[in-house]
C-alpha cells in the first residue's frame, strides 16, 4: 500500500474511534444527567427534608417558672437572668483542649471539667453539654471576645431560680435543680428540655405542674459549626402561675431568730476565746462549714451551736401557716446550680441534718402536750368529770412496776384542770388506765395526731399513735396496761410531728372545726369538717390550758402574753430522751444543761392566743432544749405575740 493510502487508513481508524469516544462521552454525560434528575427531581422531597433538618435546630423553649411570694407579696422564689455556657463536642473537635482554654479564661473547677469530659465521652457528639450556669458579666465579655477561637462553645441567656430569702424559707420553698435521668424516664417529653429545672422538694415540688408552665418551641437556624444564625419562635412558652403563700416573712424571720437563740446569748465570733472553742470542737467546725454564722454561750458558759427544732404558727380560722421554721436549715440557692460535691458533703456532714424538715418530717414524742388528748378522751367517755380527783404521791404502782411523776414529792390531790396546769403525770396515769388506749387513740386521731395533715409539701411523716391492733401487727404481742400509762404522758410509742401538734392545738382552740393546714393563702373561711368533740369537755380542757399560763402554779406561768393581747393558753411538754444514769446522778449531774446535748430532754410547748376567740395556734419543739416551760414556752409566747401584733397591720 502507498503511504498516502496508509495515512488515509490510519486517519479513518482514528476518526472512527474519536467518534466512538465522543459518543461514549455523550452517553456518560446522559448518565450523569439521569443521576442528577434522580437526586434533584425524583428524590427532591426527601433531600429537602434532610436539608431543613440540617438548617433548623428544633428547640423547646423552657417556660418562665411561676414565682412564690409571701402573704404580703414579698418574693420567696423568683427568676434571675443568667447565662449558660455550653459545648458541643461535634463542633468543638478536641473537647479537652477547649476545656483547658476555657479554664484559662473563666473559673472552671476540676469537678466540672471531669463531668463535661464524661458527658462528652458518653453522649452523642451533637448534643450540647452544659459547662457552667450563671456566668458573670465579666466572664461573658471575656468569652465573647474570644468566641471565634472557641468552636462549639456557645452561651445563651436563660432564667435561673433564685431564693431571695435563702435559708430562711429553705424548708418551705424547697428548691429546683436540673432534671434527673429518673424524671426523664418517667416523662420522656422532658428529654427535650435538658436545661429545665424541676422542683425536688418543698412547695417547688408540690406545686410543680402549676409553677412550671408550658414550654414553647422555636426553630434555630444553625450553620454546620452549630452557631445559631436566626431564631423563629413558633410557639411562645406559657409562663407558670405565681403562687402566694400564707407565710409572713417578718414572722418567719422573728421566729427563726428566737428559736435559734433559745435561752442563750449569741457570742462575738471574732474573740480569741470563741476561736479557741471552735478550733477544739469538730462539731462547731462542721456547723460553721455549712454556712452557720451564729454561735451561742449557754448558761454554764459553753460555746454551742444554735438550737435545733421546729416552730409552726397557724391561723386557727383558716389553717394558713404563717410561719414554719425548722432549724437547722439550708440555703436552697446552692441546689439551683449543679450542686457541688463539696456543698453536698457539708450538708450531709452537718451533725444535725439540716435537710430534714422537722416541721413535717421530724418525729417527736409529744410528752405532756399529749395530756389534752387523754383528758378529752376520758371526759367524753364520762370516765371523769371536772371534779374527779386523784391523789399524786410522786409515783404510781402498777403490778411490779413503779411509774414516777416528774415532781418527786407529788402534786397531792388534783382534778383534771389542776393536773393540766401543773402537768401532773400520776393523774393521767390513773385516768388513762381507766379510759383505755383505744379511746385515747381515737381522740388523738380526731385532733389530727398520727396521720398526715395533707399540707402542700411532700415528705410528710405520719407518726404513731399506738393502740391494740397496731401493737399486735407491728410487734406481734398484746398491748399491756403499762404501755397505756407511758402513752398517757405522750411517751413510749407515741410519735408526732410538730405540724400535727399545731393542728391539734388549732382544733382544740377552734373547738368546732377540724382545721387543716395550708401553706397557700386561703380565700374566705374554708369548709372544715366538724370536729365532733363535746363542747363541755373542751371547755374543761381549755380551762386547764388557761391555767398553765395563768394559774399560780402553772408550768408556763412566767410566759403568759400581756392581757392587752388577750393572753394565751397552752401546755408544756418535756420529753425524756435518756434517763439520767446512776453514775451521772452520783457525780451530781442532774441538770439538763450539764449532760451531753444528745442526752438532754426535748422541750415542747403548744398554745393558742388570744384566749377569747382564739386566732393563732403555735407548736414549738426544741430538740434537747431542756424543759418545756423554760425553753419552749417563751418561744411560743414570742411567736404568738409577734403574730398578734402584726395582725391588722398586714
Amino acid at each position, binding site marked *: *500500500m502507498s*503511504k498516502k493510502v*496508509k*495515512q488515509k*487508513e*490510519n*486517519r479513518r*481508524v*482514528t*476518526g472512527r*474511534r*474519536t467518534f466512538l*469516544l*465522543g459518543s461514549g*462521552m*455523550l452517553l*456518560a*454525560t446522559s448518565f*450523569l*444527567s439521569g*443521576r*442528577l*434528575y434522580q*437526586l*434533584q*427531581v425524583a*428524590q*427532591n422531597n*426527601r*433531600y*429537602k427534608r*434532610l*436539608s*431543613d433538618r*440540617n*438548617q433548623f435546630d428544633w428547640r423547646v423553649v423552657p417556660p418562665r417558672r411561676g414565682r412564690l411570694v409571701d402573704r404580703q407579696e414579698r418574693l420567696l422564689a423568683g427568676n434571675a437572668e443568667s447565662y449558660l455556657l455550653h459545648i458541643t463536642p*461535634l463542633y468543638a473537635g478536641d473537647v479537652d483542649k477547649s476545656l483547658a482554654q476555657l479554664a484559662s479564661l473563666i473559673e472552671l473547677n476540676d469537678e466540672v471539667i471531669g463531668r463535661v469530659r464524661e458527658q462528652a465521652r458518653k453522649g452523642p*457528639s451533637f448534643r450540647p453539654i452544659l459547662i457552667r450556669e450563671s456566668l458573670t458579666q465579666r466572664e461573658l465579655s471575656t468569652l465573647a471576645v474570644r468566641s471565634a477561637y472557641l468552636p462549639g462553645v456557645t452561651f445563651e441567656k436563660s432564667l435561673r431560680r433564685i431564693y431571695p430569702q435563702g435559708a430562711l424559707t429553705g424548708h418551705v420553698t424547697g428548691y429546683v435543680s436540673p432534671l434527673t435521668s429518673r424524671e426523664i424516664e418517667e416523662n420522656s417529653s422532658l428529654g427535650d428540655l435538658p436545661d429545665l429545672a424541676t422542683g425536688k422538694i418543698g412547695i417547688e415540688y408540690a406545686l410543680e405542674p402549676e409553677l412550671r408552665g408550658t414550654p414553647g418551641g422555636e426553630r434555630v*437556624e*444553625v*450553620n*454546620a*459549626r452549630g452557631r445559631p*444564625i436566626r431564631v423563629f419562635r413558633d410557639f411562645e412558652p406559657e409562663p407558670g402561675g405565681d403562687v402566694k403563700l400564707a407565710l409572713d416573712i417578718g414572722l418567719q424571720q422573728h421566729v427563726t431568730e428566737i428559736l435559734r437563740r433559745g435561752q442563750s446569748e449569741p457570742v462575738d465570733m471574732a474573740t480569741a476565746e470563741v476561736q479557741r472553742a471552735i478550733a477544739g470542737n469538730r462539731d462547731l467546725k462542721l456547723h460553721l462549714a455549712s454556712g452557720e454564722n451564729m454561735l451561742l454561750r449557754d448558761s454554764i458558759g459553753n460555746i454551742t451551736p444554735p438550737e435545733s427544732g421546729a416552730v409552726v404558727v397557724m391561723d386557727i380560722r383558716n389553717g394558713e401557716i404563717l410561719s414554719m421554721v425548722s432549724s437547722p436549715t439550708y440555703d436552697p440557692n446552692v441546689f439551683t446550680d449543679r450542686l457541688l460535691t463539696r456543698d453536698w458533703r457539708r450538708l450531709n456532714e452537718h451533725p444535725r441534718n439540716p435537710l430534714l424538715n422537722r416541721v413535717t418530717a421530724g418525729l417527736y414524742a409529744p410528752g405532756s402536750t399529749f395530756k389534752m388528748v387523754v383528758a378529752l378522751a376520758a371526759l367524753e367517755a364520762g370516765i371523769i368529770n371536772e371534779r374527779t380527783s386523784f391523789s399524786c404521791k410522786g409515783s404510781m404502782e402498777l403490778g411490779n412496776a413503779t411509774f414516777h411523776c416528774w415532781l418527786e414529792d407529788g402534786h397531792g390531790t388534783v382534778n383534771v384542770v389542776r393536773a393540766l396546769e401543773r402537768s401532773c403525770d400520776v393523774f393521767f396515769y390513773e385516768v388513762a388506765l381507766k379510759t383505755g388506749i383505744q379511746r385515747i387513740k381515737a381522740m388523738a386521731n380526731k385532733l389530727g395526731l398520727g396521720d398526715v395533715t395533707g399540707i402542700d409539701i411532700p415528705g410528710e411523716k405520719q407518726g404513731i399513735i399506738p393502740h391494740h391492733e397496731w401493737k399486735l401487727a407491728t410487734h406481734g404481742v398484746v398491748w399491756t396496761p403499762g404501755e397505756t400509762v407511758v402513752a398517757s404522758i405522750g411517751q413510749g410509742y407515741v410519735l408526732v410531728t410538730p405540724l400535727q401538734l399545731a393542728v391539734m392545738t388549732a382544733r382544740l382552740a377552734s373547738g368546732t372545726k377540724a382545721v387543716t393546714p395550708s401553706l397557700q393563702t386561703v380565700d374566705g373561711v374554708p369548709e372544715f369538717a366538724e370536729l365532733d368533740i363535746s363542747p363541755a369537755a373542751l371547755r374543761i380542757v381549755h380551762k386547764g390550758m388557761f391555767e398553765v399560763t395563768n394559774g399560780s402554779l402553772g408550768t408556763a406561768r412566767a410566759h403568759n402574753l400581756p392581757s392587752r393581747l388577750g393572753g394565751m393558753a397552752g401546755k408544756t411538754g418535756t420529753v425524756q430522751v435518756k434517763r439520767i444514769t446512776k453514775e451521772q446522778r452520783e457525780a451530781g449531774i442532774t441538770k439538763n444543761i450539764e449532760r451531753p446535748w444528745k442526752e438532754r430532754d426535748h422541750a415542747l410547748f403548744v398554745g393558742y392566743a388570744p384566749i377569747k376567740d382564739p386566732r393563732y395556734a403555735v407548736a414549738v419543739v426544741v430538740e434537747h432544749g431542756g424543759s418545756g416551760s423554760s425553753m419552749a414556752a417563751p418561744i411560743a409566747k414570742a411567736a404568738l405575740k409577734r403574730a398578734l401584733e402584726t395582725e391588722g397591720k398586714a
Partner: protein
Amino acid sequence: MAAENVTIFRTVLRIPWHILLVAGVLVTVGALALYSASEGSWTPWAGKHAVRGAVGAAMVLVLAFIDFRILRIWAYPVYLLSIVVLIVLLGIGGGGVARWINIGGFTFQPSEPTKIAVLLALARYFDSQPLDKMRSILTYLPPLVMIIVPFILVVEQPDLGTALALALGSLTLLFVAGLPWRYILVSFIGLVAAVPVLWSQLHPYQKTRVMTFLDPEADKLGAGYQITQSKIALGSGGLFGKGFLMGSQSQLNYLPEKQTDFVFTMIGEEFGLVGNLFILGLYLLLIGSVLGISYRVGSRFAQLTCIGVAMMLFLYVFVNVAMVTGLLPVVGAPLPLISYGGTAMLTVFLGLGVVASAVVHDRPAVE
C-alpha cells in the same frame, strides 16, 4: 512589515474564538458560584478566580501565536522535564504528601500540567511511527512505559485521583491511535484481575475514601459526611434551585469544600437541575468543539493532541460530577474552569492553548 501584519491578522482570524467564549462563560459561572460560596463576597475566591480566568485566556492567545511545529519539537524535552520535576518532588516530599510545590507564594500542583506533557509526548510518538506499524503490539509498548512512569510517580505522591485521570486520559490516545480491539479486551481483563493487588497498595486514607463511597451512611459525621451533605444539597435544590445565595447547605457551611471540589453541588443547590444541566451542556459544547477540531487539523500530532485535550477535559468533568452525586468515591477532583484552584485551571487553559495553536498553525486536513 506588511506581510507580518497580514500573518498576525490571519492568525487572529483563525483563533478558535468560540472555544474561548465557552471557556469564558464557564469561568464567569465559576466566579459567580464562588461569589455565592463566600456568602456574597468577591473575596477570598471569586475575584481571584476571575483574574486567573483572564490570565488563562491571555495564555491561550499567546500559545495561539506559537508555531505548532515548535510544540512538536519540544514535546519530548518537556515530557522529560516534568518527569524530573516529579522525581525531585518525591525526593523533597519524602514519606509525606508531595503534591504541591510553592513558587513565589503560589502553590502549584505539577501533576496537573504533567497530563499535557504526557499527551504531547504520546502524540509526538504516534506521529513519528511508521504508518504500517499501527497494528503491531510492539508499537504500543513504548507509550505504555511513557504513561506508567509518571503514573507511578504521581501515585507515590500520593494522589491516586490525578494519577488515574492521567493514565485514563493517556490510554485514550492509544485507543484512538488504533490499538487493535483484541489487545483492548485482553488489557481490560488484566486490569480487572489487578484490582485486588492495587487495593493492597492503597494508603489507609484512600481505602477509607473508597469504603466510605460504598457505604456513605455508615459514617455520616466522618468521611461520609461530605457525600451525604453533597447529596442533600443537590437533592434539596430541586428543578430550579433555592436561588442565588440562598443555598442553605452551602451558606450554612454544611457543604465542605464548596469552593473547590463541591462547587457543582452548590450550583445545583442554588440553581437546581436546570443550572446543572446548563453547565454540563457548556462542557459538552467545549469538548465537542475540541473533538471537532481534531477532524479538521492535518497532522497526526495535532489530531491526537486535540483528542487528548478533549478527553482530559471530559475526565475532569465526569469524575467531579460523578463524585459529588455519590457515583464515585471522593478522590479530590476539581470541576475545570469553575472550581477555585489555579493548577487545574492552568492545565485546562494550557490544553486549550495547545488546541488553539494547532488550529492556527497546522495544515488543514486533506480528504
